[in-house]
């Protein structure tokens, strides 16, 4: 069988070589090891030896030509007159049993996105004489069924796929030999062509979000919810419960893209229980320290008791802030400055960050009114001292912040002087 003669790489920085001279002429018999041609690189001129024995044929590069490293410049063939074009002569080797020598016919690509073709049936039998124009086999693609011609004159020496098989584009389907074959070979495609990953076939319309695998594999999780760190963080920040996705049978692990589905589920399930999600905390103090503090402060120039009340509440939240005091259906807002100074509190029309509902003069002893737009503190008289309730949503204050607010405020109401100290 013919062996290619290529331009060797003789230096590390060399990408082409100049053929100085051919030392054999086309048709000459050569023996493996014979000097075949002379190459000049930037370093030196060297003789290149034949790597096989036979006859020099198919010389494509002449003396004086620069040839890229690796390019085929000739062949060493079994006979001197074998000057067939290099590309047409394809030899197929197989370990199992020798295939006949000849031109190979491959599965054509009939559509742009086609990667296999279904061989519907053979129109010639192994051993038949064929001409280049004879129809050889029939192929079905996703678009149509077409007949494929032999392309070479000769004999159908081998069929390498059976009717009904999917053959990858470019795979060898048949061999057409020049000589009538003694034992035509019949084979089938050894294994089904590997199914290409879906993403490799151009999608009809590329979408921004890559699709989830169609059939997600259930993953054993051992009770833990498998979630990407980012999805877990976003779910927590947005008050979304990942367990709802688990209940809905959504495949794990969860990623940010899955939060859309979670949001849809959450909206459905959370509607009726919106108020139940609100937090309600109650504190009791043994004495209303503020009742004694207000007259003392008034004597020292701080005459607006509601401003003082707003100051104590605001100082327990995050100053500066605006606190509204609500009493008997009336509401006044006070701006509490960053330094929390009780003498610098002023009335304001700004929206409140916190409402302090004063029910001390009423008969009410306990309230659950649900969350409002801002956290609400409610003051009520108790048998002894005061009861203080805080109502808010987790979005307004998380649990630690709510506890902190109520404890600090309760302490300030019981011991207003603590605030001054």
């Amino acid at each position: 069988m013919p062996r290619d003669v290529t331009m060797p790489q003789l230096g590390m920085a060399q990408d082409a070589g100049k053929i100085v001279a051919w030392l054999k002429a086309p048709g000459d018999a050569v023996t493996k090891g014979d000097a075949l041609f002379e190459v000049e690189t930037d370093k030196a001129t060297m003789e290149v030896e034949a790597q096989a024995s036979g006859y020099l044929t198919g010389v494509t590069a002449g003396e004086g030509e620069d040839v890229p490293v690796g390019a085929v410049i000739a062949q060493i063939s079994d006979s001197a007159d074998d000057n067939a074009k290099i590309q047409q002569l394809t030899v197929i080797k197989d370990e199992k049993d020798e295939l006949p020598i000849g031109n190979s016919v491959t599965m054509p690509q009939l559509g742009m996105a086609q990667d296999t073709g279904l061989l519907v049936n053979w129109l010639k039998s192994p051993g038949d004489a064929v001409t280049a124009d004879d129809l050889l086999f029939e192929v079905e693609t996703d678009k149509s069924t077409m007949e494929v011609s032999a392309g070479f004159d000769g004999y159908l020496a081998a069929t390498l796929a059976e009717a009904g098989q999917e053959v990858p584009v470019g795979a060898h389907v048949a061999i057409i030999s020049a000589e009538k074959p003694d034992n035509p070979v019949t084979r089938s495609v050894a294994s089904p062509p590997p199914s290409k990953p879906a993403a490799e076939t151009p999608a009809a319309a590329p979408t921004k979000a890559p699709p989830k695998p169609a059939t997600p594999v259930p993953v054993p999780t051992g009770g833990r919810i498998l979630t990407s760190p980012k999805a877990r963080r976003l779910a927590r920040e947005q008050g979304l419960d990942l367990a709802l996705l688990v209940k809905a049978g959504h495949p794990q692990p969860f990623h940010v893209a899955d939060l859309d589905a979670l949001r849809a589920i959450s909206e459905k399930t959370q509607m009726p229980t919106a108020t139940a999600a609100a937090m309600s905390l109650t504190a009791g103090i043994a004495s209303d320290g503020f009742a004694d503090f207000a007259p003392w402060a008034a004597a020292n120039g701080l005459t607006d008791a509601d401003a003082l009340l707003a100051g104590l509440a605001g100082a327990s939240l995050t100053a500066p802030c605006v606190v509204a005091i609500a009493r008997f259906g009336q509401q006044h807002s006070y701006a509490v400055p960053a330094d929390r100074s009780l003498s610098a509190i002023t009335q304001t029309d700004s929206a409140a960050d916190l409402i302090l509902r004063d029910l001390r003069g009423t008969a009410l002893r306990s309230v659950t009114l649900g969350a409002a737009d801002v956290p609400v503190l409610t003051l009520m008289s108790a048998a002894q001292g005061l009861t203080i309730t805080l109502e808010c949503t987790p979005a307004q204050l998380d649990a630690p912040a709510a506890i902190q607010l109520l404890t600090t405020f309760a302490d300030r109401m019981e011991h207003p002087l603590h605030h001054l100290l």
Partner: protein
Amino acid sequence: MREITLSQAVNEAIAEEMRRDPTVFIMGEDVAEAGTPFKVLSGLVEEFGTARVIDTPISEPGFVGLAVGAAMTGARPIVDLMFGDFIYLVMDQLCNQAAKQHYMSGGKLSVPMVLRTNMGATRRSAAQHSQSLQALVAHIPGLKVAMPSSAYEAKGLMKTAIRDNNPVVIFEDKLMYQDKAPVPEEEYLIPFGVANIKRTGTDITFIATSSMVQVAEKAADILAKEGISAEVIDPRTIVPLDEATLIESVRKTSRAIVIDEGHQSYGVTAEIASRLNEKAFYHLDAPVLRMGAMDVPVPFSPALEDVTVPTPETVAANARRLCAGEMIDAA
């Protein structure tokens, strides 16, 4: 802008610095008349003579030690190590001497030396001439490590390296010497520790070094056709590392693949992936993947060698899996 090869860019950088500063000289095996086996230094000996372009005997520990001493006493040597694989021979001079003199002398000595060498497989050079050993030196405090990804970077980083007062190791990919890129005629330097965002994207970040930058860019091209938008970042120096740019990108895309041609285990990719894990954990929507060379000696067989390194196809395939939210595990 004119285009020149990476090889010419390195040559220009060294020639310019040798003209600018008479204390700069270069030495190594076959650097003078031969201009190195890759022809990178051709022409230098003609201009600067054999006193500043010095052919050494084949004794890597000897001439790297010589360079450390020269650097400590006022010269700015560039040492040419013919193959990156020979780093094993000079480990003591490089890692015990060059890297530590400044620290151990209380700042009285410094070693302004550049060791230029190469890396990169798929040249059919077999296991002892194909390794990418940047992780070995990046591990040692006191050494800076630059990895140019094109002729432009090769020139700018080399000039910065020569002017740096610390030992710098530059790894050039030996397959890229003939690759051309636009390089300005006028002088420029590329600062160390400043990553280059080669391409912006929104779905995944590829952090790639040296020739893997080209691989990452080709993978990004493939993915763009499928609607996946990949950002490609070249850190340019792995020591110092521009962590801020990498983290900022990953916070945006929430996915990352780190690609470097060194062996994957205990390598450059592992270090960068680990930092992203530590500092961008709550912004990650998928595990950070490492892609390095297989943990095998580089095969001589071309068919085998080609599958040991990351390719645009393998990078794109991994990116698809991450973007699709597939479970990535040891299997």
